[in-house]
């Protein structure tokens, strides 16, 4: 027994250490990654800012510097060179003749000489009205090479041709790396973007700072090189903080799971060492000494695990940096940053979490009566489990309000943020309740989960299922660790799938069209689709209907008396009710006449509007008062839907924000698409998307999101699997005699190994199924609380996949303990008492 205990101890140290190691590793890795990225960014900005002696920036973010200022600065004594930064939209046309990207590319002036702050990676900087450079990434993606001719649209959407003379890294410019960039010399940049002002003026030379500030006037500030570097880095640093916070949140989940695993390990070990503890008490150890002993042990395990975790974290960080470096963000790979803060946070979290998790087991150790040493030990885990009062109390006190909150937030409360918070609170309480009640659930769940394996794997299978159910407390803690990860993953999946399904359904019901045409968005100018484009499409024989959606931002005053910005919109009258059918939650489309408006439910709520209320709008052509005749559900419909006649009269905007195109029956598919694209040739910035593509886009977005969450939660699940392996290993040690007996009675090694696999499988299934149940419930509640009329979609195949993966992974977790169990010599195990 002592020998087994010792072996178990070494193994426990290893496995428990692993759980802590992974948790700390994730946290430390997050710090290493973000610190390294930050250091890289800092350095890059510092290097870039180094080229500038002084910089003039507008005081306000997004402000501008008049063009005349540059000349005045240049005239100052000590200024050897001064150049202004021009920036605006410069839409790059791809090889297919359409605008590149969802957002227009940025047109940037590339400075010359010493002040050139961007790295030219190939070719040379642009000079003169016919030359341009591209950012390397965009060029690679669009397969443009130096020497080719590129077409760029100016601010009036007129095409201009440029010779591509070089490729540049605009990496220090956030917007450029997001949207892609075309670089020109300053004069050309002004011509293309239509901007006659500067966003920044960079100065080289020994000019007096005060003199520059005097010239620049009150609307601008003057920074030296160092300040400029810090300013630029701080902007990027905000992103880094967000990334870090997000990653740390997942780290927290991992630590929580680690804590459960550690708690369970210590609890099992204390039970197994009852006699040892009792013996210690017999020979005079005080309760305090026992408690201290267990805690000290946990501290050592925590410290070892955390130290390993730091190493793992450093490796993880390095791997992530290398991976990111290979993709788009170029991070200087030289020198990973291991800040003292990282070490301190990692060690503290690891040790404290381990010790905190060991407190309850340590307390249990002190309750051992000295006489227990004299008792012959019972077979472990055969005692009947009766759910205690505290557990029951926690279960009821958290579970009832938790479920009520879930239901209330989802079904009763007004949709929106407060409902979602209510639901989140309800979800958390329900989870606590499930955790408390889990031991009572293990037996019934185990029977259900084990039904199939027990039937398939024969007697060993049945024994395995019994083993999984025999210590409900132990199994419960082991499985809850898995429940957390699977539950969160399921919830995110349900959320994502529901959002995608809702978009799908909105489109299918309200906008049953074949193509959706939208302008590139996100440019500095509001972009629209020219009315002529709609006219050209209507002329096509393949097209049955073209619906224009026009929108305009306006100040609106509702029943609450508050003026708010709102978007007024109109849809082509001929299509309204026939091609596109906005869904009304109250009122009817038929009532929409000049002088009336339909509002979305969200708008109605925020402005306190209902049928019969009036809204007032300030338009360019005078005030407009409209009567509300109904509410529509949120979706593609504008917040304030008016008739086309009113829109024409008061807003006069002719160009559309979106076109919806229906092909004639039989002409759908590629023929219609080719015709549409041909008709749109003069309008390269209009993006054509078929509804099928649109759906795929949403699905892809959801998939990407789910994959990212899965990867991040994967660690928590991995730790939970270590927990299963850990519990099994300890159980194997505990059941050495039993295993030997089974082997003597004719259970083969393979059957014994399979028994452990089935046991792990059942545990994994219990955890996964509970997780799926909680995840689906909270996913449903969150989705329902989010907005009106959302379609709740349960992605069954994906959820089934989670369960299947958990089952497989659980079985894998049993491999090592099973080998160990099978290897034990029957004779040895039988020989000693």
């Amino acid at each position, binding site marked *: 027994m002592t020998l087994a205990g010792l072996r178990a101890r070494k193994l426990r140290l290893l496995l428990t250490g692993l759980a802590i190691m992974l948790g700390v590793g994730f946290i430390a890795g997050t710090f290493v990654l973000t610190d390294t990225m930050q250091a890289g960014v800092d350095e890059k900005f510092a290097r870039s800012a180094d080229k500038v002696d002084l910089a003039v920036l507008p005081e306000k973010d997004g402000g501008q510097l008049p063009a005349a200022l540059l000349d005045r600065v240049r005239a100052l004594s000590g200024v050897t060179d001064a150049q202004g930064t021009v920036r605006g939209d410069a839409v790059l046309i791809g090889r297919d003749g359409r605008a590149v990207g969802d957002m227009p590319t940025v047109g940037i002036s590339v400075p010359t000489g010493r002040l050139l702050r961007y790295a030219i990676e190939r070719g040379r900087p642009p000079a003169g009205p016919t030359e341009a450079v591209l950012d390397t990434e965009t060029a690679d993606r669009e397969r443009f090479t130096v020497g080719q001719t590129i077409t760029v649209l100016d601010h009036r959407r007129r095409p201009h041709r440029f010779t591509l003379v070089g490729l540049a890294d605009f990496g220090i410019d956030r917007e450029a790396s997001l949207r892609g960039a075309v670089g020109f010399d300053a004069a050309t940049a002004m011509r293309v973007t239509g901007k006659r002002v500067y966003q920044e003026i960079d100065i080289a030379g020994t000019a007096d700072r005060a003199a520059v500030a005097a010239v620049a006037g009150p609307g601008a500030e003057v920074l030296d090189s160092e300040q400029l570097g810090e300013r630029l880095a701080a902007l990027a640093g905000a992103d880094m903080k967000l990334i870090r916070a997000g990653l740390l949140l997942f780290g927290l989940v991992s630590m929580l799971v680690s804590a459960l695993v550690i708690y369970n390990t210590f609890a099992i070990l204390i039970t197994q060492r009852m006699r040892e503890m009792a013996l210690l008490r017999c020979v005079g150890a005080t309760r305090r000494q026992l408690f201290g002993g267990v805690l000290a042990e946990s501290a050592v395990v925590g410290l070892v695990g955390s130290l390993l975790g730091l190493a793992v974290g450093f490796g993880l960080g390095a791997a992530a940096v290398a991976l990111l470096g290979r993709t788009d963000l170029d991070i200087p790979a030289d020198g990973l940053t291991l800040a003292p803060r990282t070490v301190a946070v990692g060690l503290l979290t690891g040790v404290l979490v381990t010790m905190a998790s060991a407190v309850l087991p340590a307390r249990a150790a002190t309750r051992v009566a000295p006489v227990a040493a004299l008792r012959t030990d019972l077979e472990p885990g*055969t*005692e009947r489990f009766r759910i205690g009062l505290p557990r029951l109390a926690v279960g009821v006190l958290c579970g009832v309000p938790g479920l009520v909150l879930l239901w209330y937030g989802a079904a009763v409360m007004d949709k929106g943020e407060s409902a979602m918070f209510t639901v989140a609170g309800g979800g958390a309480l329900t989870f606590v309740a499930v955790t408390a009640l889990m031991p009572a659930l293990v037996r019934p769940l185990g029977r259900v989960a084990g039904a199939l394996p027990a039937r398939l794997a024969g007697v*060993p299978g049945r024994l395995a299922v019994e083993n999984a159910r025999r210590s409900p407390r132990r199994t419960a803690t082991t499985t809850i660790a898995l429940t957390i990860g699977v539950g969160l993953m399921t919830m995110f999946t349900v959320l994502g799938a529901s959002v995608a399904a809702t978009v799908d359904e909105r489109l299918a019901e309200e906008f049953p069209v074949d193509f959706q045409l939208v302008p590139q968005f996100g440019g500095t100018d509001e972009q629209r689709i020219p009315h002529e484009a709609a006219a050209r499409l209507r002329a096509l024989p393949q097209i049955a209907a073209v619906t224009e959606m026009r929108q305009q931002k306006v100040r609106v005053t509702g029943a609450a008396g508050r003026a708010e910005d709102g978007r007024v919109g109109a849809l082509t009258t001929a299509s309204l009710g026939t091609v596109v059918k906005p869904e009304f939650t109250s009122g009817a489309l038929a009532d929409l006449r000049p002088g009336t408006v339909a509002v979305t439910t969200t708008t109605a709520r925020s402005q306190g509007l209902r049928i019969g209320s009036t809204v007032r709008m300030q338009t360019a052509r005078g005030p407009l008062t409209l009567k509300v005749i109904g509410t529509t559900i949120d979706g593609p419909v504008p917040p304030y839907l008016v008739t086309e006649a009113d829109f024409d009269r008061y807003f006069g905007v002719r160009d559309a924000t979106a076109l919806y195109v229906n092909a004639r029956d039989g002409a759908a598919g590629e023929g219609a698409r080719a015709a549409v694209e041909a008709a749109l040739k003069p309008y390269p910035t209009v993006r054509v998307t078929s509804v099928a593509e649109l759906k795929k886009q949403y699905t892809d977005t959801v998939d990407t999101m789910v994959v990212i969450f899965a990867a991040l939660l994967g660690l928590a699940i991995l730790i939970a699997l270590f927990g299963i392996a850990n519990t099994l290993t300890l159980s194997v040690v505990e059941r050495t005699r*039993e295993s030997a007996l089974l082997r003597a009675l004719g259970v083969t090694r393979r059957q014994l190994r399979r028994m452990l696999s089935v046991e792990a499988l059942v545990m994994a299934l219990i955890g996964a199924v509970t997780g799926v149940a909680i995840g689906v419930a909270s996913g449903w509640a969150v989705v329902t609380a989010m907005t009106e009329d959302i379609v709740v979609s349960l992605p069954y195949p994906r959820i089934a996949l989670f369960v299947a993966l958990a089952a497989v992974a659980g079985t894998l977790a049993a491999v090592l303990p099973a080998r160990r169990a099978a290897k034990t010599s029957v*004779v040895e195990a*039988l020989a000693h008492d």
Partner: protein
Amino acid sequence: MTSTFTSPGEGAAASAGAAAPPAVTAVEVSKVYGSGDAAVHALRGVSVAFARGAFTAIMGPSGSGKSTLMHCLAGLDTVSGGRVMLGDTRLTGLKDRQLTLLRRDRIGFIFQAFNLLPTLTAEQNIRLPLELAGRKADQAWFDRVVDVVGLRDRLGHRPNQLSGGQQQRVACARALVARPEVIFADEPTGNLDSRAGAEVLGFLRASVREMGQTIVMVTHDPVAASYADRVVFLRDGEIVSELFQPTPDTVLDRLARITGGAGEPSAGNEQNLAG
């Protein structure tokens, strides 16, 4: 230095198998743990046969190798030399899987403690070997065995709800119900008080007499050994003596002679010649 015992059909044993081949035979079996200087010779060329339908006890002081012998005979352990036969099957050289299936199908076990699986009821424990083999228990036989060991009203209980004696009776029933060719019992009464022990031993003897079961039992208790038809004595890994129709007194006497009388290494041979 080989002690040879042939199957004693000539003894007064009430065995019906005088003409039948022995259930289990060991020929020149040796077992060495470790190697070189550290080598421990647990068995030094033991040859012994166990008759069908007989109740044989193996006795000897601690470290005499009696448990090792049993483990080798039962296919729980491998031998270093010699061979073990179960009926016509040669155990020596079988793979682990074959040995396991052989144990499952042809051998029954009763151990000193931890005989039962705590998660199973008494009945499930009794049926375990049969179910492992995928065989159906003969219900009449099952009922008879259960009635003989007196467990009818305890079948639904789990081991921790049974007394030590009851647990051992469940173990006996489990061994009997599968009708194995031989049952190996390792100190089956070691953990029981004398009354419960007597009960268990009574069943074992009855099963031999009434059901024709073959039993080999390792024990250090002369009273327990006296229930057997024949007692084989081991010392230092060798068979040194044997006794038929033992009583507690004759066993004790013989035991005293082989342990106390270290100067009589030939005692066993004498007995053999005399027998």
